């Protein structure tokens, strides 16, 4: 029962990553691509937590913390770059 519900939610999160990948490829501006990247990585944090459930390992949550930190720093760096150059 629990495994079935969590498998459905993994499928939904993968669909949301695919939808934001569409915006990442098509987006007219650089900022559109950056916000699509942000949504993709934030959805991937939930996906990594669900993978940690299926593999039954708590170590994968550390991977999720580092992944979120890198995404945060990346978005802020690109945003500062946008203001100065465009």
């Amino acid at each position, binding site marked *: 029962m*629990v495994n079935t519900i969590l498998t459905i939610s993994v499928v939904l*999160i993968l669909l949301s990553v695919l939808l934001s990948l569409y915006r990442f490829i098509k987006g007219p501006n650089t*900022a559109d691509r950056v916000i699509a990247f942000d949504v993709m990585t934030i*959805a991937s944090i939930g996906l990594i937590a669900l993978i940690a459930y299926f593999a039954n390992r708590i170590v994968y949550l550390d991977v999720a913390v580092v992944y979120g930190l890198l995404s945060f720093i990346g*978005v*802020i760096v690109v*945003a500062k770059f*946008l203001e100065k150059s465009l």
Partner: protein
Amino acid sequence: MEILKIIGAVITLMGSVALLLGALGLVRMPDLYNRIQTGTKASTFGTMLTLFGLVFIFPGWTGKLIILILFVGISNPVSSHVLARNAYRAGVPLTGKTTVDRLAEDMEKKNVEPKNDAQ
């Protein structure tokens, strides 16, 4: 304890539905600023719910999951705010249906030249 696990799984399912709706808004919205609003709000809420559902399933993981929830809840609004502000300063156009732009009025009042002229 089976009922607690099922409650946690349903909370996780609600979070992933919120993530899916956020990504759908990211595709459907006409404008960068609307995309930032729908995408970031819904994805922050969805990820926090997804992680919170796992607390019920594995009570031993509560510490790290709470740290992750706090981190996502702090960092994601900050990064989207910085992105929206710098995109406006860089002159990313608004959509054609915009009726009021308070930031441009404030910038005119302070004699700062607004780069954004899509009205």
